[in-house]
């Protein structure tokens, strides 16, 4: 019969607990919940203005606004901007508990006309939401 010395038992206990706890924590880790994601022409006090799916080039700058109403822990998300399936830019945005709103933007140029999309992905790259819009004359 296997017998463990009490001192050894005290040394092994934290390690055993750690090994048991890590998978448990991983299984219960919560992702931030995306409450709202819109494209807009401007933002004022973290409130999107002139939400649209088509933006004239003369607007000059457009914003991708994302609002997370449940952020369990400090994390980050990505805003990936594509023009006709070509990745133009990736913005990394930090999220902090308990709620967080964040945005990214791009400056429009004449050559930016056409269909766009912004993929909102979590820290692991999983796509949370895709916003589709166009930049026109």
């Amino acid at each position, binding site marked *: 019969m296997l017998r463990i010395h009490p001192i050894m038992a005290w040394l092994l206990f934290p390690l055993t607990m750690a090994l048991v706890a890590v998978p448990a924590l991983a299984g219960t880790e919560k992702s931030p919940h995306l409450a709202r994601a819109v494209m807009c022409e401007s933002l004022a006090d973290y409130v999107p*203005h*002139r*939400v*649209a*799916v*088509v933006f*004239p080039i003369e607007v000059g700058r457009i914003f991708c606004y994302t609002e997370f109403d449940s952020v369990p822990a400090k994390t980050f998300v990505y805003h990936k901007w*594509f023009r*006709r*399936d070509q990745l133009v830019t990736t913005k990394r945005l930090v999220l902090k508990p308990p709620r967080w709103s964040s945005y990214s933007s791009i400056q429009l140029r004449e050559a930016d*006309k*056409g*269909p766009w*999309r912004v993929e909102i992905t979590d820290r692991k790259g999983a796509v949370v939401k*895709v916003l*589709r819009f*166009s930049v*026109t*004359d």
Partner: protein
Amino acid sequence: MLATDYLIASLRWQDLVDIILNSYILFRLYVLFRGTQVIRVVIGVGFLWILQGISRQLGLIVTSWVLQGIIALAALIIIIVFRNEIRRVIQAKNLKVLLWGWPQHGDLTPAGVIVESVYELARRRIGALIVLPSQDDLTDLVQGGVTWGGRLTKQMLISIFWPGNPVHDGAALVRNGYIERVGAILPLSNREDLPQRYGTRHRAALGLSESSDALVIVVSEERGDVTVAKDGRLHEIPDNLALNRHIRYHCQPVAGLDSSGRRQSIRLAAAALVCLLFVTGIWFRFARGLETLTTVEVPIEYMNRDQKVEILDTSVNRAVLHLTGSRALIKSLEAGQVKVLLDLSKAVVGTNTFSITADNVVLPPGIRLTRIEPAKVKVTVDRIVTKSLPIQVDWVGRLPNNLVLKKVSLHPEKAVVVGPSRVLASLSTVYTEKINLANINSSGRLSAGLVIAPATVKLAADSSSKVTIEYWLTERGG
């Protein structure tokens, strides 16, 4: 030896037909015109042609030119001078005679009657000139006279040449047992070397025999001698048997195999062989004699492709082939005759490199391949897969300044496309055709087609090529 082997190996069935057909045409021409002056002149022209070829090979430029001119002129002269003979052949009573029959050139004139008449006239010292025409047309050679049309008899012939008869000085034309014409005037020979004993009748007989294949019998008024003129020569006839032999030889059917016997058969077989050799020689000279080089650019055809894969890209689509062969064969090359076929049965997904060898090239017989460019071709193939992609509207133009396009809803939201896996991996959206915002001033619905690109990608059979777009406009705020 190798060249001969190559020539024989490269013979096409068309070449054999070409040679045999032309040999037969030449042989038929010989059969139809044999015995006439035409065939002799044509043989003469043939020799001139051979001489011209030799002189050209030897580099005798002027001689070659002169002979070429003479041949061209001779061809024209043959047609003009022998128009009657040519017309007679062309106007054959039936096609059989023209194409495969044996024309009967024999004369049914009874030789015995003529022999008896001639020697009776000779015995009585009555001058006579009797023409036995053969195949040559004498219309242009024999002038004047009176058309007779009477059956040939001894009494008739004697009475025609009886002194005091108005037509006794002319010649009598005898054909097929009938006296066609009497009192006819024959062309006189210009020869200076005729013996003194020969008079005008002899000169006339010789003149016609020089210009035609007719046999002319002359009875001397002064000496009672009998002379025969044939082929430009005068023959003294010693007795009636000799005259009979001359007439029979002249009048016998010259081409009938049934009646001409073994000698005729051998002669025709020899003629057929000569025709075959002659045409073969000409064919080889023209068709295979002059080697030439050419370059052709042909599309590469890909065969035996697995239906589950698609060709995405090739390093080249056309191959340049350097070919050699006779000028005639090279000139007759047609687009579909030369092919480059590449077997894709062993192609794997990804980029494959194939060597283009002579085994991949299809050429007509007689044409040889010397070089291929490029020697290798890269072919990229990919497996065909299906993918569902979101649809996005491709807006263009400009909305009125007071309006904002706030929301869009699509039905269906996705399209299913089929295409090579590597191409589809880079595709994440299917766009609609361009929709002009200038035409929109209120919320509504419209239908638009989908733009599927690149060309290797296609919509799945069960996927709609149209999408319904519902859109909402709002007033632009301040």
